[in-house]
């Protein structure tokens, strides 16, 4: 029986990916553990490895195909004792003609292909993707989505990802009411279903009605087609949009701003780097990570996440650091940073940032975390606020350190001052907690010797 190789879910949030490269050709012998292909997901590029042995008989999804849905068949493997004739009459999970399925169509057959899974095999991501315990989407990379045919069609028409919708039907099946009550759907009630009134270019300024968007989204807002280039949303952009919108809607946040004098910190950094072994170079950012982590350890009330069941107080300070990369940003995490010295933090950060730029991070390296830091100081930004990256309770925005006039002992003086803005999720971090955490943080920054203890 030929074995179908399915598009693996490399992370809990992965819905689709780009099959960027095949590492095996049709006809190649495949042993368990062999690398088959490279998959580019929303945030990373990863290799997938074979679980079964055999011959790669047929590649169903060509290299470079984007938007391949999780669990869509991507190739067919013949077992050792089978020859190509076994492929005669063998159909992939979709109902269409077996091998002629063009890549673009495969994703639409996603759900069907999952329903009769006896002759399927799951590819395992390599390296094994870390799966968060709270993930409810099933085990072992399988993300079967139960949805009624009508719900599927409604979601497809509205451009919603089914995996983002919570099902309330039998056994969590997504039904019509779930799609209709889905966040995005609220703005598009049934009236939006009606055929649009005659194309009156001035009639479309009703912002509520344009959201089903696509090509004429901007036109309805008064921007003529042809006056701009449209870049399709890639996986990362979709995730950024989805997560930040939901954070902005769901999280009641407030900012706290404080100035830190960093002359002592800069001096200590110079001294450290002067004595550091070859290859080690501590950055200001590394010191901010360490100071934040120590402040979180010192003040655990601030190291918290809101959940509907209660407030989670984290045991470790897992500090996520925003790294700008081509086409977006990503937040690799220094885990247990409160227990890591500056040189460890520095070398970890260097490695994470480097691989982030190549989009080679593993999901467990950028998913989760308890706190984040975003630093735009290098661009001369004096101060700014950030949007909370759930489930983090706080995010710290770091501005540029620059000489400023300060008053010391009643005298005007010059100090290097860095303004940081702490944005807090008020559901878990109240004003006083955030402020006290900032005091602790500021003490570490202004008396940096204390962070060496």
């Amino acid at each position, binding site marked *: 029986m030929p074995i179908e190789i399915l598009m693996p879910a490399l992370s809990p949030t992965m819905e689709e990916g780009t099959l960027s490269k095949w590492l095996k050709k049709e006809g190649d012998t495949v042993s368990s553990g062999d690398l088959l292909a490279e998959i580019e997901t929303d945030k990373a590029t990863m290799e997938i490895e074979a679980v079964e042995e055999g011959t790669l008989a047929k590649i169903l999804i060509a290299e470079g195909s984007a938007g391949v849905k999780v669990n869509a068949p991507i190739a067919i493997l013949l077992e050792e004792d089978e020859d190509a004739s076994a492929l005669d009459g063998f159909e992939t999970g979709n109902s269409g003609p077996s091998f002629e399925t063009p890549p673009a169509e495969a994703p639409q057959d996603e759900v069907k292909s999952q329903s009769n899974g006896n002759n399927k095999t799951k590819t395992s991501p390599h390296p094994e993707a870390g799966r968060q315990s709270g993930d409810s989407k099933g085990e072992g990379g399988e993300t079967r989505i139960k949805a*009624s*045919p*009508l*719900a599927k*069609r*409604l979601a497809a*028409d509205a451009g919603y990802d089914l995996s983002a919708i919570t099902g*309330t*039907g039998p056994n969590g099946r997504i*039904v*019509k009411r779930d799609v209709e009550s889905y966040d995005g759907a609220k703005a598009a009630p*049934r*009236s939006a*279903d*009606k*055929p649009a009134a005659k194309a009156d270019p001035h009639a479309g300024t009703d912002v509520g009605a344009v959201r089903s968007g696509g090509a004429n989204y901007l036109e309805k807002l008064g921007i003529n087609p042809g006056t701009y280039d449209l870049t399709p949303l890639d996986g990362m952009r979709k995730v950024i949009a989805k997560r930040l919108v939901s954070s902005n809607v769901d999280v009641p946040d407030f900012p706290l701003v404080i100035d830190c004098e960093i002359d002592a910190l800069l001096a200590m950094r110079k001294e450290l780097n002067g004595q550091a072994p070859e290859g080690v170079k501590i950055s200001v950012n590394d010191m901010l990570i360490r100071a934040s982590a120590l402040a979180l350890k010192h003040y655990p009330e601030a190291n918290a996440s809101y959940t509907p069941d209660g407030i989670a107080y984290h045991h470790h300070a897992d500090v996520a650091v925003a790294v700008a990369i081509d086409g977006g940003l990503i937040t690799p995490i220094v885990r247990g940073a409160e227990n890591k010295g500056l040189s460890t933090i520095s070398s970890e950060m260097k490695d994470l940032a480097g691989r982030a730029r190549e989009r080679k991070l593993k999901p467990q390296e950028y998913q989760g975390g308890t706190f984040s830091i975003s630093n735009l100081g290098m661009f001369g930004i004096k101060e700014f606020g950030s949007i909370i990256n759930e489930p983090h309770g706080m995010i710290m925005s770091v501005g540029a350190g620059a000489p400023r006039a300060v008053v010391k002992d009643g005298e005007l003086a010059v100090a290097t001052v860095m303004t940081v803005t702490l944005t807090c999720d008020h559901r878990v971090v109240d004003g006083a907690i955030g402020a006290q955490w900032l005091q602790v943080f500021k003490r570490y920054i202004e008396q940096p010797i204390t962070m060496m203890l």
Partner: protein
Amino acid sequence: MANKSFDVVIIGSGPGGYVTAIRAAQLGMKVGIVEKDALGGVCLNWGCIPTKALLRSAEVYHNMQHAKAYGLTAEAGYDLKAIVKRSRDIAKQLSGGVSYLMKKHKIEVISGFAKLEKGTDAPKVIVGKDTITAKHVILATGARARTIPPAGLEPDGKFIWTAKEAMVPDTMPKKLLVIGSGAIGMEFASFFSAFGADTTVVEMVDRILPAEDAEISGMAQKAFEKRGVKFLTNAKVNSVTTGRDVTAKIEVNGKIETHNFDRVILAIGIVGNVEDMGFEDVGVKIDRTHVTVDEFSRTGVKGLYAIGDLTGPPWLAHKASHEGVICIEKIAGKNPHPLDTNRIPGCTYCHPQVASVGFTEAQAKEAGHEIKVGRFPFMGNGKAIALGEPEGLIKTIFDAKTGELLGAHMIGAEVTELIQGYAIAQTLETTEEDLMETVFPHPTLSEMMHESVLDAYNRVMHI
């Protein structure tokens, strides 16, 4: 004087009450059910079941009269007493069946008339000298035929019948007036006219079976008229007076006509059984004879619920049962979904039968849907022809944009057995695609359900 206590007590043992009792027992509750009359309620004793028995006799009689068409000879004759006896025996048999089910599930049946008094967890239920306490009390007291005494529209022991009297007729009327052309009125019109009663049906609105799709109403009226039933639409009976027979003053399109009949059947709706049980004393809200409840049948009084005909429409046995199950599952801490009343099929067992589920064409348009409509006539179906039932139609209504099955409407032989297919389709939220991909066996009447869907998308095969 005895005191009893239960987890849940249900008042009324119709299809709402007894099904709820069984589900409660399955959920591990200690259940009591109070019934003042026979187990099974109106449905089983004076409604759904005995009328189906009567209509079956009418159907067989009709076939005997038309035996020649099938190459048979038969001498058609009937014995009204025996027909009624058969109907009563069937009701009795099924009521006995409910009694067995109660025993099987260890549900205590309490005979008598229940009254509510204020209690702690839930109102106390007083039956005779007994006081029954329970954590939850579910009212399932049902409904009865509406009467209008000032106009003479109430049973008089001889000429004027409600459904209950019409079910045990002493005589086959020569001239029969049926007031109301809903399901009950049309079933009796069908029954009595089949045995030769000269039947006139009066309907207030402009078409019969007003709850059905207008196209189906029209076809039903034509089919009945073909068999000699007369209809007065846009008409109402102002009064009836009785003497040697019944004189009815009927206002048709504003003009008053006087007609004489020897029997009159009232089928002008129902009223909820809300009286004399102390409902209002414990704080139940009643709106035009029906108890006001939320989507999980809660009355707003602590521990007190109401289901079935006692509450809002549609007033159907299967609605009562389903509502009761939802109510008791909610009580048991499960997570049922409220009943979607638009997915409750309705059936009328007249000849020809009528069945429907979901929106009519007019309702679908009114709800703002752009629609696709499919139709398939019985004439194009091999099985219908072989059965000698070439009259009828299956009509389907889809949302043009999403392919959602908004409604289905049928008239013709055995359609009451077919409608369930579409009800499942709606519940599973299938689209036209799934229905088209479903294989319907040949030769069956059900093939018309497939063809109707195909027709909506211009793919019909056999017309």
